[in-house]
């Protein structure tokens, strides 16, 4: 495998070439670092740890669902009074569901995913030495870290963690008398999310300004890899929607501790008449979902970007319809602000408004469909290399299809009457968002691991991880659709109180076993990830034969990314298997003058001078050919 680079021959051995003389300490290098690559790793590792915690919580509540009548004495050992006699209590069950959802959505799939890959890829793929504001970047990580700590701390308060669901709808979340988790636990939840949003905003501003201002020479917007496009839209979505969640959270805070009535009205809890009047819980739902829906796209867009890149590289083919991919990202981003009401069809919101939201919701399915078709077209007639990243990407597309088509059910207000707040919804979003986004993230980890750690992960463990997780996720979520159609509501502590749910008890056991096995398979990943840092095979300069700029940086990962000058970009990132070229990839740094045999008229659009040179060369080539005959 060739490791093409057109960098000026710099001396790679002088790592601290860019260190401006001073020596880095452990603290500045690994803890309060301002190097975007190290911050990316911090985000990733924190995200992975949080993912394991959230996964563990989900196994706990799955145990309860599968064997509602059985005691697990071991649970009492580490849950204490919340699992007295080895049986999880109903309130703690809700706390588990709530914290599982919160951690997964915000800390793993938002910070862990876009935090990691924005930090890692933006400077590397656009040819910048670091982020626009490295210090703020560092703050962004540490705010995120503190948010994680505060959220986990809520497990150690007397009244337990927040337990009103990850959507924390008031009045339940506002009244400690209605559920104990709405006491100190909910306060911590709100504080944690407040800090988290600050982290997101600092990160977002940084990502956007870096992408817009710090692209290297030749890196026009239309030459950016799709990862960067996706991360750009993600950051914009976050910046526009997270502040709305702040307002929702702050008003809830007021209602809880200062006696205001933004969300509360006409309430009698435990025989006590509360003074609140005039508020509306629906207001909270509007504010929450104005963030909440863009949030689900904040989660999936980076995965789209990663998967576009990985599929293209490993099919050895340009991504099909690059422009369409960008426009569909744009379309999804814009539309995602206009559909939040589809979470509220049956909340008592004006039914006419529901009808309008239904129309906008189904429109958003069009750009989503375009993306899927383009992925499939990219694979078509490719020359597919099944790296672990590639198999995860194919898995991601499969999940996105399976989960996306159920969007047509829930997006249809009339059908949603039947399936809202049932297991059907759980199945829908775990496939389309949960599984698809996680697979995108894993694809990214397997793909850019050599860039992060200079070593390769073990392929075979990767495949094992993929197949068990892929099958496991389908085994877990496909049956849930049918429970939902049957009318089993979500967030039920046990299925034992209703006769019609009894037929699902055995299915629940099956689901829980699938979840446990898929969960254990993640150990293969954790092992692979941490063990390969020290013991993996050494990475080569460009292990996947990719075109993008990050593979022109030295393997040693120096501060400032490139020794010497920044690379210049001459072409788009998807010249894979271009006819006429001897290799099946042409890095972005290779000028057209070096690839005369493979240039196409299309490459010179708007540059008659270059076109003329090309034509002259081709004419000359003909003569040479003639002569050699």
């Amino acid at each position, binding site marked *: 495998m060739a490791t093409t680079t057109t960098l000026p021959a710099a001396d790679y051995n002088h790592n601290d070439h860019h260190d401006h003389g001073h020596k880095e300490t452990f603290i500045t290098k690994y803890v309060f670092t301002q190097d975007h690559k190290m911050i990316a790793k911090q985000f990733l590792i924190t995200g992975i740890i949080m993912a394991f915690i959230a996964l563990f919580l989900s196994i706990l509540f799955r145990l309860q669902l599968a064997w509602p009548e059985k005691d697990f004495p071991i649970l009492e050992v580490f849950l204490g009074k919340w699992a007295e006699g080895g049986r999880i209590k109903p309130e703690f069950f809700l706390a588990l569901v709530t914290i599982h959802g919160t951690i997964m959505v915000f800390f793993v799939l938002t910070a862990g995913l876009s935090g990691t890959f924005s930090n890692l890829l933006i400077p590397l793929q656009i040819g910048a030495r670091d982020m626009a504001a490295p210090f703020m970047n560092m703050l962004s990580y540490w705010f995120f870290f503190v948010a994680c700590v505060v959220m986990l701390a809520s497990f150690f308060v007397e009244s337990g963690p927040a337990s009103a669901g990850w959507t924390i709808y008031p009045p339940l979340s506002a009244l400690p008398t209605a559920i104990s988790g709405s006491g100190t636990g909910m306060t911590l939840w709100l504080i944690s999310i407040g800090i988290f949003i600050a982290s997101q905003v600092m990160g977002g501003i940084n990502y956007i300004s870096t992408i817009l201002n710090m692209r290297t020479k030749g890196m026009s917007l239309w030459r950016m890899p799709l990862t960067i496009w996706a991360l750009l839209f993600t950051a914009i979505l976050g910046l526009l929607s997270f502040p709305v969640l702040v307002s929702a959270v702050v008003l809830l805070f007021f209602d809880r501790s200062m006696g205001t009535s933004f969300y509360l009205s006409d*309430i009698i809890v435990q025989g006590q008449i509360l003074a609140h009047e005039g508020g509306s819980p629906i207001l909270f739902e509007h504010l929450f979902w104005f963030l909440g829906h863009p949030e689900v796209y904040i989660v999936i867009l980076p995965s789209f970007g990663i998967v576009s890149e990985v599929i293209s590289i490993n099919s050895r083919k340009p991504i099909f319809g690059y422009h369409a991919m960008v426009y569909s990202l744009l379309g999804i981003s814009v539309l995602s602000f206009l559909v939040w009401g589809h979470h509220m069809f049956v909340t008592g919101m004006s039914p006419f408004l529901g009808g309008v939201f239904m129309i906008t919701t189904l429109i958003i399915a069009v750009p989503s469909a375009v993306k899927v078709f383009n992925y499939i077209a990219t694979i078509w007639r490719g020359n597919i290399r099944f790296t672990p990243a590639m198999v995860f990407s194919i898995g991601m597309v499969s999940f996105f299809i399976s989960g996306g088509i159920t969007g047509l059910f829930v997006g249809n207000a009339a059908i949603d009457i039947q399936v809202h707040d049932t297991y059907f919804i759980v199945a829908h979003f775990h496939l389309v968002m949960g599984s698809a986004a996680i697979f995108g993230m894993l694809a990214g980890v397997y793909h850019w691991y050599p860039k992060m750690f200079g070593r390769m992960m073990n392929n075979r463990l990767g495949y094992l991880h993929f197949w068990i997780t892929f099958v496991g996720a389908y085994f877990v979520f496909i049956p849930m659709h049918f429970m939902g159609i049957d009318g089993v509501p979500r967030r039920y502590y046990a299925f034992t109180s209703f006769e019609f749910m009894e037929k699902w008890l055995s299915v629940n056991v099956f689901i829980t076993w699938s979840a446990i096995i898929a969960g254990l398979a993640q150990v293969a990943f954790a092992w692979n990830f941490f063990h390969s840092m020290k013991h993996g095979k050494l990475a080569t300069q460009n292990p996947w034969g990719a075109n993008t700029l990050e593979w022109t940086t030295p393997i040693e990962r120096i501060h400032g990314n490139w020794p010497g000058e920044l690379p210049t970009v001459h072409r788009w990132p998807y010249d894979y298997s271009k006819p006429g070229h001897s290799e099946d990839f042409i890095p972005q740094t290779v000028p057209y003058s070096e690839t005369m045999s493979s240039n196409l008229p299309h490459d010179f659009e708007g540059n008659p001078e270059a076109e003329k040179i090309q034509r002259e060369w081709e004419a000359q080539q003909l003569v040479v050919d003639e002569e050699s005959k």
Partner: protein
Amino acid sequence: MRLKGFIHIKGVFGLVFGLLFLFHSPSFAQTDTAAVNADTEQVATTDSSAVDSATATDTSVAATDSEVSATSAPASASTTAVAAEEEAGIPAQVYVNFFYYVLLFVLVCFIVTILGQVLSVYELTQGLRKKLPVNNWHSHQAWFFLVGLIVFLYGIYWSYAHHGTQSFREAATEHGARIDTLFIITTIITTIVLVLTHIALFGFAFKYRGSDKRKAYYYPHNNALEKIWTITPAVVLTILVLFGFFTWRGITNIPEEQQKEALQIEITAEQFAWNIRYGGRDNTVGKRNFKLTTPVNGLGIDFTDNSALDDIRAGDIVLPVGKPVHFTINSKDVLHSFYIPEFRVQINAVPGMPTFFYIVPKYTTEEMREKVGDPDYNFILLCSKICGSGHYNMQKKVIVVTDAEYKEWLSQQTYYFDDTMQKEFKELSQPKQANLVIDGNKMVSNN
């Protein structure tokens, strides 16, 4: 090789012991004096001494060692002993069992590692023997995708055939039938899309697995193709949207007149129960005001409103078949959701804002029992919005009967404004008028 294997073993054991140590620490259980002891044998004892109340019985439990915690209740009848016993009640066997599970998992890891090593060795020797260049296409994965495709398609079929038939029941209301039509059309369309795209995705993955002999086809875009697959979904979706929109409006946009003529029933949700109120002779549910709530008047019904006087209290929701019903849904505390799956009815119960649903039941409970072939079958009202610890068990029977049966049933129900309620109403309104003259005047003038 051997050294590497050794590192593996060390690492795995380190992980296991680390995990065990973590679980031994009772910190998760927030006991005040968390005593951590790494020794498995003694953990049970330590745990009991970690109980915050340092009573005499407590110490005795700790002293008598793990025996006490292993065997069940000592015959002592003192309440403190019972309490302490409860806290200390984790038998040592629990730890042993858990340890075995961990060991089992480690064993599985070992087997996987060994299999992996065997595979590597095999591959290496194969490579040496055939002098194959080490290729990096990993095309064996393509075969897995082919198998995956077949399993996936069969799995879809199996799910529809088994889980599908046991989950889908015909709707028992008139609007529900329309939702069902929409549901079935959407299912057909999406199933076709699901199958075709997966055949393409996994099929192409298999067919175009890499090899050194080929080069991929440079095919960056095709505008015609892209237009086709933008417009096709757009058209299909437009049809679904229009169909859905009119169905939705048909369900939710009932003319005022028609709503008034329907049987009026008010449902008020609270943690964790449903209260049912029928409009009575005047078919009008009287006003309620949450400030009037008392232990007797749980709904806060305003009996100064005449239409409240004949409101009927019911234990179950009983409906006459074929007659329109207009539900008004309230909540006393947090959000709940009024959900009757077979009726295709779902609407949230929101404190401070009544919500509505209009239905016409199509089948009586008896007819439905015959349809599903289950003589004990019942329609049931569930709560589908998370509302607290009892969320999973907030049910009410819904019974659909013939008109005659309905009238018969109704005549047996009692009024909300019964003797106790009347007494309380008088008591509450009198002292107010006596003590607070201004207030009393206001009340009078309000009337």
